[in-house]
């Protein structure tokens, strides 16, 4: 396999604490190696004046699955005058807020990403998720099955049967080729099957009579009992409502006292996702305000939490989430087309288009909150950049989000030109923040941090010899940082080079190779559990609408698997 010597670049690697020094990076047989391990035949690539980082890792995006696809086909207008073919080894691409799978792979790669986590996989539809993952080029992917409203889990955790719950989770991860435990609006989405909701961590779930707090702590215990590579990944209750930051603090506090138990270097027991949507103060849209500082004060004090931002990009986009009742509520607010699917025994999903207009005060405040969260983060290894794609904005806007984080000038310009700038400034603290994220911090927030949180820190997220050769090289020179912030956005929009598994897949922003993407999933071994086997058999016979034997996703759907084996049989 090809050998490369990437010379003279400015390396940003939080794993090795390299903060922009000029270093050579050597690639051989798909891995990063010591430069001394290369033969004279190695191809030399001079990246003088450019920044070198590990491939970026998307920890939370909705890119593959039934609700993503529903969003695609029910919004033909998202592709009007937009579907196109770009030069390179590409298929037709399209979709401004919900890209087709080809566009998804190419656009992530063009921005230097090498991994994406599909944020929510309904287990009954797992096969669909994997079909889309299989068709998405270049980037490695994984998917998180949702457990927060699952009937098996609700019954086991009501009686605090952790071992049974763990056996069921292990079984589901195996059946669905899933990566970890995702929780969306715990209990509330089961309540939504009756048109109800759980808006606080203490609201009991109808019939099942268990609270979100019990669900969350039970799943933390389950996760650590199994020793999974990732922690629970949670979208908490009461998303999107004025005043919801209280519910968020109640949710985060449930992690207190728990310690991570795993062989993957993971330190957190809870990953709270798209925190922007959960950091609202006030009690109505009129006095709506940012509570980012209060929330980050708490997050900064803990050492067992990671978060991702969920930055609003001020675009027309499409919201989609397993928080079914929230989507119904949003559809009632903006009267746009609302789609909903309740999934038997497991979860639900809702989709509603949304326009984050800079002329609307609330949208501008949401924009500010997303940035505040990142700028208040004390440890960039625990705070990751996302847009909860496509909920707060399309992932293709990451270069713009980076621009706002790295340039106070750029974000002040945006802030001061809002239609209701005075009100927005009064309701937020962004104007007072001088901090500008550095390239080194950015590498932590988009590479090393997410990799560690996912339990992949040994092989991904860094440039240490032995790690996988996923490398992104940007046209940005730390010694000659551009004075025009637009140049930052431009630099992160198209890599000079993207190496995936040691192969050049993108050159000068053009796709030159589709690589050999892999599907990551976690295979957990637990002791044989008669109770759970019985419960599974019974529920399939009586309540599911398909047969147990037809539930699992065969290996043919993940032809290039990256399987992480976990032994939880002790």
């Amino acid at each position, binding site marked *: 396999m090809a050998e490369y010597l990437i010379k003279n670049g400015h390396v940003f690697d939080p794993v090795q604490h390299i903060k922009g020094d000029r270093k050579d990076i050597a690639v051989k047989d798909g891995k990063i190696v010591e430069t001394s391990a290369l033969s004279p035949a190695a191809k030399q690539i001079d990246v003088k004046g450019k920044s070198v980082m590990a491939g970026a890792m998307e920890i939370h995006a909705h890119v593959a699955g039934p609700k993503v*696809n529903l969003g695609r086909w029910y919004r033909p207008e998202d*592709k009007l005058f937009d579907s*196109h073919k770009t030069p390179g080894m590409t298929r037709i691409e399209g979709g401004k807020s919900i890209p087709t799978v080809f566009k998804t792979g190419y656009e992530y790669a063009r921005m230097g990403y090498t991994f994406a986590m599909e944020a929510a996989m309904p287990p*009954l539809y797992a096969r*669909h998720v994997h079909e889309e993952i299989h068709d998405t080029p270049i980037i490695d992917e994984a998917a998180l099955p949702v457990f927060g409203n699952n009937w098996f889990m609700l019954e086991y955790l009501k009686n605090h049967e952790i071992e049974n719950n763990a056996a069921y989770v292990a079984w589901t991860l195996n059946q669905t080729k899933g990566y970890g435990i995702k929780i969306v609006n715990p209990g509330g989405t089961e309540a939504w099957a009756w048109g109800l909701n759980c808006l606080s961590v203490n609201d009991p779930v109808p019939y099942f009579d268990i609270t979100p707090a019990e669900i969350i702590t039970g799943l933390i215990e389950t996760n650590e009992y199994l020793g999974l590579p990732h922690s629970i990944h949670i979208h908490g209750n009461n998303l999107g409502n004025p005043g919801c930051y209280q519910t968020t603090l109640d949710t985060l506090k449930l992690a207190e006292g728990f310690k991570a138990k795993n062989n993957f270097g993971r330190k957190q027991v809870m990953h709270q996702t798209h925190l922007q949507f959960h950091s609202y103060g006030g009690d109505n849209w009129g006095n709506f305000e940012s509570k980012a500082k209060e929330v980050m004060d708490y997050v900064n004090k803990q050492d067992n939490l990671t978060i991702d931002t969920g930055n609003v990009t001020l675009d027309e986009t499409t919201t989609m989430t397993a928080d079914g009742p929230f989507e119904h509520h949003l559809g009632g607010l903006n009267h746009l087309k*609302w*789609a*909903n699917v309740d999934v038997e025994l497991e979860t639900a999903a809702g989709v509603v288009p949304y326009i984050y207009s800079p002329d609307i005060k609330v949208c501008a405040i949401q924009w500010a909150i997303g940035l505040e969260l990142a700028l208040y983060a004390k440890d960039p290894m625990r705070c990751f950049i996302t847009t909860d794609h496509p909920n707060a904005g399309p992932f293709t806007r990451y270069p713009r989000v980076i621009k706002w984080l790295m340039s106070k000038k750029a974000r002040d310009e945006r802030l001061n030109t809002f239609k209701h700038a005075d009100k927005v400034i009064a309701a937020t603290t962004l104007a007072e923040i001088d901090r500008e994220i550095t390239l080194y911090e950015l590498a932590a927030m988009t590479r090393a941090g997410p990799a560690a949180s996912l339990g992949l820190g040994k092989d991904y997220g860094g440039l240490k010899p032995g790690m996988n050769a996923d490398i992104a090289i940007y046209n940005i020179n730390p010694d000659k940082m551009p004075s025009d912030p637009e140049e930052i956005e431009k630099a992160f929009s198209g890599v000079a080079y993207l190496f995936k598994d040691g192969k050049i897949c993108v050159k000068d922003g053009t796709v030159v190779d589709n690589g050999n993407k892999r599907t990551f999933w976690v295979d957990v071994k637990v002791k044989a559990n008669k109770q759970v086997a019985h419960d599974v058999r019974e529920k399939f016979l009586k309540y599911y*609408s398909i047969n147990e034997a037809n539930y699992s996703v065969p290996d043919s759907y993940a032809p290039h698997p990256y399987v992480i084996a976990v032994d939880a049989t002790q």
Partner: protein
Amino acid sequence: MPKVVTDVTCPFCGTLCDDLEVTVSDDNKKILSVRNACAIGAEKFNHTSLPGRVTRPRMRQPDGTFKEITYDEAIDWTANMLVKSKKTLMYGWASTSCQAMSVGHEIAEKVGGVVDNCATVCHGSSLIAIQDVGIPSCTLGEVKNRADRVVFWGCNPAHAHPRHMSRYSIFPRGFFTVKGHKGRKIYCVDCRYTDTARCADEFIQVQQGHDYELLNAFRTAARGEALPDVIGGVPKEKIYQVVEELKGGRFGVIFFGMGLTHTLGRNHNIDIAISFTRDMNDLMKFSIIAMRGHWNVTGSGQVLSWQYGFPYAVDLSRRSKARYQTGETTSVDLLVRNEVEACFNIATDPGAHFPIDSVISMSKKPTVTVDPHINMSTEISDIHIPVAMVGVETGGCAYRMDNVPIETRKVVDAPDGMLTDVELLTKINTRVDQLMGAQ
């Protein structure tokens, strides 16, 4: 010893029952019996070894008869047709696997095809409505476990989806519905008294072509507004009564079919039914589900959507973009307006389903039909290429009417030497590459 294959998915209708048990001969060549399927599903399996099965491609001769040719000859002719044509209709897909569709789309993108599926003459109207107003919906298991108000509007599952009522919508005892049909109120709205109406608690006869007006009246009644005396043949008192009864339930669902998709207004009829469902969600839980016909038309919609962003009528003829406009890029319109130069049919029978003007138009263009059977489309085609029956002789992914993906299995071997859809399309793809590379 014959063996029994269990958990088999039936490849006929959108109900996609996956509990069939098929007994197969020891040498894996013959189906001996089928259990649990309805009459239609059983026939799908049983007819595979009937005499007269075509196992090799055949080409129309100048005198109108067909002569057997080899797969290679058929593949070469097809690839030449595709490469030469400025714009080709590639229609069907509804009875094959998602894996096959994927290969077909690669070909369409290269040769400038319009990829369309059976929704174009079936639930396309429903898809258009969902594109305009969204859809509150659920999986069939939710209906089984929760629904206590079930409305069949313009559909007749007793005939078209025979096991639907016993597996999901009327009779099953679910987690919250332990009384089965005794705990449900069933309504049937139709212009005629069908066998499904016979299973309902209440039959509402609507004047043909007045469903949109009747649904408008339902919405108006639900908002407590005044109504004229009679709408679509239904007295206003009945409308108020039914709306009140629906509101008294906990979980309602509307199933609908061609009665809405194919009567005056088409997509508007489903649009307003969805709007009614959405209105009801302010008061209780309400869902609506389309009774999809072919067992994998939903799958074709899914694959086209994740690859190009549109569920059917996807115009790839410019090869640099995907475009969609039902009424322009839909098969019947393309044929009637003579906007395509060649036709490639696979896994369905447009000759039987399309309006006669479009069939005549197709018969005048170079046409290839890929299907295990001799059917009306093959008889107007230049070449008929038979393939293994998907879901019986080869497996692959399929999507149920509620979009749940279920695997179909290979149960018996196909006749010797026959290709599967995936194999055939892959060979056509390779030949297209060779021809286009030589240009």
